[in-house]
């Protein structure tokens, strides 16, 4: 019973708090935003096309970095478990794998994929 009262009390306080905030603001902002204020800030100019479009994020450089740094860990955990059993053969195999991944990192670096923005 006490839990139920607490839940309703918290719920009631939340509603009161929200209603208080809305009353204090005095306005419903959505009704008062004029057309110029809805426009993007471009220094006084208007866009010629709608912004409703497919933004070209260029995910492929991020994908490359993700594969190079993240996917290698996926293989390295099981490799670490069997490393003692397989010995030098496991070391060579992982070495080859890391060299290939390193080439990917170098390529991403050259393409500017590691640049700070």
């Amino acid at each position, binding site marked *: 019973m006490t839990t139920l009262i607490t839940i309703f009390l918290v719920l009631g306080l939340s509603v009161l708090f929200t209603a208080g905030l809305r009353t204090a603001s005095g306005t419903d902002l959505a009704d008062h935003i*004029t057309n110029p204020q809805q426009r993007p800030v471009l220094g006084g100019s208007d866009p010629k096309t709608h912004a409703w479009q497919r933004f070209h994020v260029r995910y492929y450089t991020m994908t490359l970095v993700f594969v190079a740094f993240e996917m290698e860990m996926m293989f390295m955990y099981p490799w670490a478990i069997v490393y003692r059993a397989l010995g030098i053969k496991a070391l060579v195999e992982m070495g080859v794998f890391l060299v290939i991944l390193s080439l990917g990192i170098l390529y991403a670096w050259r393409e500017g994929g590691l640049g700070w923005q």
Partner: protein
Amino acid sequence: MAVTWTSAGPVPVFVATGAGGAAVRHALRAADEVDLVRSPRRACVLLVAGDVPTGDRSPLLQVHDQVPRPRGVVAVGARGMPAELAPITSSLGGLVATILEVGSQILVGEHDSDDVLPATNPVEWRGVGPNGQGGEGMMGGVPYGRAMAMTAEGSDGLTLDRLYLTLGPWLPGLPSGCRLEVGLQGDVLEEASVAYPTTGPTLAGQVRVASVEQLRARTLLGWLADLTDTAGLPALARRVSRLALDPTPEGVDAVRRRLDRRWGLPVATDGVGHLERDDVTGCGLGWLARSRGVDEDARRDDRAYDGLELAAPTDRGGDVTGRWRTWLDEAAEALRLAEAAEDRTTDRPELPWGSAAVTVEDRAVAHAALATRAVSGAELGRAVLTLASLPSACDADVAASRAEVPA
């Protein structure tokens, strides 16, 4: 509502800088009582500094209406203000006091500047299709009078939507009056076209060499302050603005040492906006040619400079870093020349932005072609930084309300 608890602190001001308004921007950036904001949405006061060309009046009205109400408008040396605005005019000396007064009046609800543009979109939504987007799928149609983005092949061989925008003429970060038209795919400028204003300060008769060199130092340091601000270093920009208002050789050296630190401005500007030596030769922008080691300087043939021993230009590389290093070199030398020139006069000096022999229109055309070349194919942030490193005579520290170089 624009009035918040934070309004009790520095007054947030958006500065719309026209030709001759740069000094106002630096004075406000150096003042502690004012917070220069980079978007009208964050401002309480719109400050118009310098001349407003006829073609830039309508964009200024849009910027005005983008400042949330209640708002104030203050003007300093602003010729050609739109008739719809009724600004409070001020002198440069009393500007901060005026802004504080307007800010406090806004806080207590005694001041407001009404909207001047229609509150609703004058072009109705004429959409068809399941979501009113104007055509089939996401393509076609002109809802609210603007076309939907269509696909085009980008520089990486992918075919995706291209967004066409015009940035400026009142956008902080771009040179005064500069317009950048872009076709964006993501944040890469697949198409770009830059236009500079065809007006600017002109030379009026005989001028003192010391005045021209002082103007050079103030202008170049002012350009550096704006570039630093655009690069996201506002505290450093404030320091450089203070120096631009009252330049000293020691101050220039101190700023140079600060900028030479490893994790400073060069991180943002190294390798950005590269221009070849052939690009900058003979374009009427003497400082830009000298930044690539080309000795293009009207002072070499000016008898007023005889015996003052002008330093030979150094090739600083063609990127943005090379350009601001040239500004520091030339500002330091200008202060030395101003000291040594005594009362010499000249009538055809090498002005801070280029030779006085080149017309404003010719320089604007050459400048625009250079800038367009430098930003094409760049990412948007780098393009804006590149343009901040290619300012025009309109950003010179010529006193607002007069368009002549001081005699």
